[in-house]
């Protein structure tokens, strides 16, 4: 903590027992709930994204296949990336509402017993 002239300083957390919170079942519950969404979502988007340069780079013939009029597979796959990214972001925000609730309980409990 440094001596900065700010109207409001960092919350008073000097008495907080971080280890006790970290070991609590509520916190472990929060972490596993988060991981259950974030890890698969991350892996999915990374695989889906890198499939694009890989396919375009190594299978340009296949990706040049025309689908509708002159629109080819390469363009449609690239365009789909935008909508998939938006969809993942939307699902994450929905899931994160649940994380917020769990985190709020942990903060409230820490406020009562932590200091």
């Amino acid at each position: 903590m440094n001596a900065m002239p700010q109207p409001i300083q960092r919350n008073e957390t000097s008495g907080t027992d971080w280890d006790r919170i970290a070991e609590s079942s509520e916190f472990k519950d929060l972490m596993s709930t988060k991981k259950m969404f974030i890890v698969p979502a991350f892996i999915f988007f990374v695989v889906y994204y890198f499939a694009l340069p890989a396919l375009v780079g190594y299978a340009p013939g296949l990706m040049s296949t025309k689908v509708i009029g002159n629109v080819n597979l390469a363009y449609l796959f690239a365009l789909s990336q935008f909508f998939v990214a938006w969809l993942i972001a939307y699902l994450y925000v929905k899931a994160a509402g649940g994380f917020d609730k769990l985190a709020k309980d942990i903060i409230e409990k820490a406020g009562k017993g932590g200091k």
Partner: protein
Amino acid sequence: MSTPLVMFLGFIAVTLGITYWASKRSAGSSAYFAAGRQIKGWQNGIAVAGDYMSAASFLGIAGIIAFQGYDGFLFSVGWLVAYLTVLLVVAEPLRNAGKYTMADVLAYRLRPRPVRAMASLSTLVVSTFYMIAQMVGAGALVALLLKSSGITFQTAVIGVGILMIVYVVFGGMLATTWVQIIKAILLMGGTFLLSILVLAHFGFHIGQFFNAIGAVTYHDAKGAVVVKDFLTPGLRYKPPYGPLDLISLGMALIFGTAGLPHILVRFYTVPDAKTARISVVWAMVLIGSFYIMTTFLGFGAATIVGPDFIKTHGGTNMSAPLLAQALAGDVFFAFISAIAFATILAVVAGLTISASTSFAHDFWTNVIHRGVERKPGEEVLVARIAAFVVGAVAISVAILLGPTANVAFLVALAFAVAASANLPVIVLSIFWKRFNTVGAVSGLSVGLLASIGLIMISPSLMAIDPPTVVGTARHLFQRPAIFPLENPGILSIPLGFIGAIVGTFLSSEPSAESKFNELLVRSNTGLGSEKAVAH
């Protein structure tokens, strides 16, 4: 006075007014560095978009698509998808556990002085390199757009440089934020109008538009007429190394965006992690919509204006303004030019504030003075001086290099350093208990050196130029490249991680491990996080 100049001056007047307004509200570190953490989620989302979408993406992408078709559109995809890493991995923990810079999160459980010194160095490298690329581009562009008003490259660089210094020195983060918001709105509006005009040109038959893309006609280097389907991949990234370069570029974008200091500092301007999350989503909506519309900008320029005409009227970067001129005349050309100018200013202002914040907060206060501000306001004063120095250096280097300098690689370098040095240590410090100071310092060093080293021996700096290429436009080393890829990410990112992991195992730091739980709880719950300043 020419129409473009009038529009440029209009934008300058509005932004200086904002800077004056913000200067009254920038007293104190939190107000100056983080706009008092009072920026609303949607506002910050628009500002992130304004901070991120550079002239390289507005003018550069339109140009690459206009000349190399589909491969250029792949940049557009990566630039949006990268925000999923920001959203899922970085934004919220950073907002919860940090204060003004990315180094705050590292300093929590590691020894603050060595990690802050290295993180600050890395921030300065990323920000100044990126800035020099923007400044050289800005000077060349503004000179071209305002040729009729007699503005030269030097005048343009000095003008852009002085404006960014004024925004940051006097208006701090608050002024920077609003410059970015206005720029983003202008950019989205201009791009939307341009897209509608392109569609109107084809009678709103999207099929006809794509048919035209299927047969873009131009003359090749030998003067022969070429008709090409610009939707076909491979016009830019050719075998044998093209596909690998494409993947390497993707890695730098996907993992680098979440390590760009000027983007990360934006998340400290909002009240809490939930608002940071909302702002990433707003940014993704804007950034995604913009990059989808590069379809109309780029392919529109290819089909309506044509590569031949663009080549003889200012080159690739003029594709979007020339498209505007072809579709709606000189006033619209001036409007799109002014948007390009606003785009550059908002980005360089963001870079300046992130560099000066890191210097003042990480290096001056925490490394030199061990975390103590000797008198109130010192940190902000140092940041203001640093902003001035960074700006002056960027102006001088840009002028020395000149308008034709070979600087495009600096953007690739900035992303590579962010992905290879910054991201690994941020992620490992949040998620890996065993991680320690030696690991952080070695990860940052290896990532930084690997990125710079590989770019030095890449085709960006090593190539044999024909004698017609002169001065700073020539490649630095006149010999065949040793490393075949323009983007080092595919090698430098793993090296950054290996550096961090090996360094960690070479030493033991019980205090870093014992404070892991604190950082874990803080970053995941927001307990004890920095609060908004009440006015």
